[in-house]
């Protein structure tokens, strides 16, 4: 294979990976920042970074977690660079109200609102577990935490959601 063919193949593989994973990356970024403009910027910048370091991805079966990690870092970098203030959650809710009220099922909309209002420390592992399908050990690796801390956050995330949605209170903490 000559250099041109190799580059074409590399581009094809990267394009294919990104096309299939982009909706998940956008959702993840949106749930991190709760702002679609920020999510799009973060994902776009993440893809450019990913393309530049695509050769470091030795196992394409791990592309999703590799890209999610890049998105996490890019989100943190963007947040730091723009010195974004911790936004008022009611302002975020107002700005994203169409997405929050989109589900036809009232219970889904209610749950989406409750998750939206969760603190980031609970929201992020919940998204990684429930939406992305990662195990608690994998989440711990991605977030640079102990597995026990992830389990605690996940327990508390669900306890808060149950409370927000009017379920009986938890007894364990």
């Amino acid at each position, binding site marked *: 294979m000559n250099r041109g063919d190799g580059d074409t193949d590399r*581009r094809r593989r*990267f*394009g294919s*990976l*990104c*096309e299939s994973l*982009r*909706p998940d990356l*956008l*959702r993840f970024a*949106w*749930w991190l920042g709760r702002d*679609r403009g920020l*999510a*799009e910027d973060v*994902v*776009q910048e993440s*893809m*450019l970074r990913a*393309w*530049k370091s695509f050769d470091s991805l030795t196992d394409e079966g791990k592309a999703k977690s590799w890209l999610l990690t890049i998105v996490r870092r890019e989100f943190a970098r963007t947040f730091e660079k723009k010195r974004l203030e911790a936004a008022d959650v009611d302002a975020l809710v107002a700005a994203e109200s169409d*997405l929050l009220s*989109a*589900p*036809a*099922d009232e*219970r*889904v*909309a209610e*749950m*989406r609102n*409750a*998750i939206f209002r969760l603190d980031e420390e609970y929201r992020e592992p*919940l*998204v990684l*577990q*429930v*939406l992305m*399908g990662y195990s*608690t050990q994998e989440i711990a690796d991605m977030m640079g935490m102990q597995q026990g801390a*992830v*389990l*605690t956050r*996940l*327990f508390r995330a*669900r*306890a808060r*959601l*149950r409370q927000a949605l009017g*379920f009986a209170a*938890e*007894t*364990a903490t």
Partner: protein
Amino acid sequence: MITCLEFRRRVGAEPFASDAEIEAHRRECAACARHQDELRSMDGLIRRALVVELPVTTMSAKALTAAAAVSAAPLASRRRLFAIAASLVAGVAVGLVLLVSAPRASIAREVFDHVMHEHGAMATTAPLPPAELAEVLGPDGVRLRSGVGDVTYAARCHFDGHVVPHLVVRTPEGPVAVLMLRHREIGKPMRIEDQGYEGVVLPAPKGSIAIVGKEMPDLDGVAKKVFDAVDWGG
């Protein structure tokens, strides 16, 4: 034997956790078993809430790869690269229109996502009491005849805006996830293949049925046995 507190702490973090201790506690404590079922059901709701459909307004990934190459390309070839990027964006836009115009074609993906989300259920091994299975299937008026394999997991899950029975049946060839989708009519069988999982969605007398296994050499044969074992009622 774990306590109720320990059980609830564990399933509160991982509702689909299943091992000998969890299964033993479920058998001993009906309240905790109900609590775990409730959490599993709530996770279905959480998942649906998390699937936000964000409008695609920025460049596609393929276009981005082309754009990324622009910075390293000589000026003479930049116009060509931008043209490639633009055509890729246009191509993706056409693809998106086609996807939007055929939203129901995503059933195979939805089935796969649901099974992956509840992949812990595939690891369950303890056969469920018939009464528990009947409780899950009863509202849909269906029944699973004996002989196809032990049912080790049964839950009513949120799927596609409906509550549907989700079973794990341990066939002699291996465990399969079964989703009974009475609300979803399909014209012809569909296949699902991703990450080592393989499955089929088949038209059924009432709606459709999805059967998904992992690394199963004769999935079609297994799917037929499961399909034949379902009594769809009158």
